[in-house]
């Protein structure tokens, strides 16, 4: 999908199931510089060193989901975060600032294309990155198709944020086509229009 620009990205795998972390490592090790952390505390330690992409499991036994994310945002670690988890997204996912969300089981191809997409995302400016985050969050929430989610205040806030970002992006770059931007990544789920 994208070229690897000489230097390989640093990928941190945070996964308490060792066998799974090892498998991810095997899949990615020939292209990227991969490290694995099997616990939350260990992951926070690893974040001290250079990291471009974090593959983060939810429901780690020693640390709440949002703590690692908070750590990343607070320390201003410039990295993309992909949730790779068996936990289906719910309302509690809205406030988690992730860049993508994969539901287990994932295969070799899923993981590679996602990491490549994250590399591409890193080349965009902040507004586009945030828009992508919001679009992904909306997409995973819609995947669940629960009216409790789509009727929730947080969801409408998210919708508003998406519209604001789209407007801002159109203003800053007249030639920008958000549709092409979305298509460039993948088919993100959008709200149904009523028949």
């Amino acid at each position: 999908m994208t070229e690897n620009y000489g230097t390989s990205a640093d990928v941190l795998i945070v996964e308490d199931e060792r066998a799974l972390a090892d498998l991810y490592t095997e899949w990615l090790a020939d292209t990227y510089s991969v490290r694995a952390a099997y616990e939350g505390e260990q992951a926070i330690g690893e974040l001290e060193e250079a990291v471009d992409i974090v593959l983060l499991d939810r429901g780690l036994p020693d640390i709440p989901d949002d703590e690692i994310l908070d750590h990343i945002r607070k320390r201003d670690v410039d990295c993309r975060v992909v949730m790779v988890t068996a936990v289906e997204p719910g309302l509690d996912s809205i406030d988690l600032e992730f860049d993508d969300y994969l539901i287990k089981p994932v295969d070799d191809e899923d993981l590679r294309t996602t990491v490549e997409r994250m590399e591409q995302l890193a080349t965009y400016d902040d507004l586009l990155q945030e828009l992508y985050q919001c679009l992904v969050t909306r997409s995973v929430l819609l995947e669940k198709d629960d009216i409790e989610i789509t009727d929730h205040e947080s969801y409408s806030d998210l919708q508003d944020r998406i519209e604001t970002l789209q407007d801002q992006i159109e203003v800053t770059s007249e030639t920008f086509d958000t549709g092409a931007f979305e298509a460039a990544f993948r088919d993100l789920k959008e709200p149904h229009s009523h028949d």
Partner: protein
Amino acid sequence: MTRPTDSFEAMTRRMDKADKKRRILYAGLLSAAGLVFAVVQLPHLVADSMEGMGLVALLTGAILPLLLGLVIAGFGYGLWRSDLPAAQLRRVNIWFLFGIGGMAVVSGALIIYELLEGARLSHIEYLFLDFVTAGGIAGILVGWYDANNQRHTKQLQIFQQAVEHGGHCFYLTSPDGTIEYVNSEFEAQTGYTQEEALGRNPRILKSGEQDEAFYEEMWRTILSGDVWQSELVNERKDGTRQYVDQTIAPVMDGQNEIEHFVAINRDITEQKKQKTKLERQNERLDEFASVVSHDLRNPLNVALGRIDVVRNDCESEHLDVAERALDRMERLIDDVLTLARQGETISGIETVSLQTVCEDAWAQIDSVDANLSVQTDQSISADRSRLQQLLENLFRNAIEHGGRNVTISVGRCDGGFYVEDTGEGIPADAREDLFKSGYTTAEDGTGLGLAIVQRIVEAHGWEITVLEGEEGGARFEITGVATSIDTHATRGSAPEIR
């Protein structure tokens, strides 16, 4: 077999018939009596005319009594046309007889007295008859008034019985909220006796669960003349909580001013308890399913991933078998989660195009050779995603049983739609077990797909029937579906999707 309603209807019919006969009898008797009075006056009229009496004497002596006789006959007719029941007509007749009897005694005594005093009275028998006729009319008027009163009292009694034994707590307050009446159910539900409740304010039932704004809104509604309806928590006299579904309505007087408030409380404590229990059970089931699926997906992911790794080194048919088994496990996890979470609930009913949802469902099916033909473009009211899931499961079921090059058709049937395949069909004796969880005859089925279908059908209030298709395959008919538009007839069949 006789339905209970049959005998009830027959009974009411019999009662109506008997009542009708009695009404004709009582009204007829009255009319007949009136006619007799009128006819008897005829010779009086003739005699008086022959005697050359003046018009005034004729009028008062014969014509008026004759007319009064006809009036009585008219009353009989009027009663027959009225809505008074037979028992009340009988009452009018009794009063009529009292009137006649009373006047007969009084007039008889008067006439005898006059005669004894030496007065010369002509046509004594007609004089007597005039009095009696007048007495009869008076009797009818009193009877009419009495019968109507009786009827109102009876109606009030029925209302009172209904209020007393209607099974709901019922009370009446003055416009300022002072309790003026409570029924016996009030005591049963709240623990306050009638004596304890009368003269007090319904706030004795306040539990503190509702805030002041709730009561303010309630007062605003009922004072403006509207009906208030809400569920709330009350406190019984013994301090225990009671969930009620409360309706309060203002009762207006002739000047459209609020005279009373009437409150009806339906005890829903048991339903609430059951609902809470069920919700808790569902939450636990949901939690359990989430944990299980989370814990199962990790090792599943490892196994699937490792198979891929091995495939890079060598190809073996064993790997295919293992992978298929793991795929089936993945589907099982998904299905268990679906059953635990969403089976029984639907949200957001909307009008959806069956064809569009079929297309979306088909896109999720991994099938190389199977065909889908949608032969309707009806729009139905459904929860879109649940409907899609239902269709996906039926399509998968058809492919699992009918082979990978099966043809599946979706079309309109009476009251809904059908999904039919060209597979080998389902034997009649297997149809009953079809929707049970875990029932599967397919080698790689989960046995939950059709159980989910049935849950979705039930959640929508639809019905599903399994039949044999035209070509011997399985045909699932989903009926009781609210359909909005079907342009199928005018636009011809929808394009085939493959």
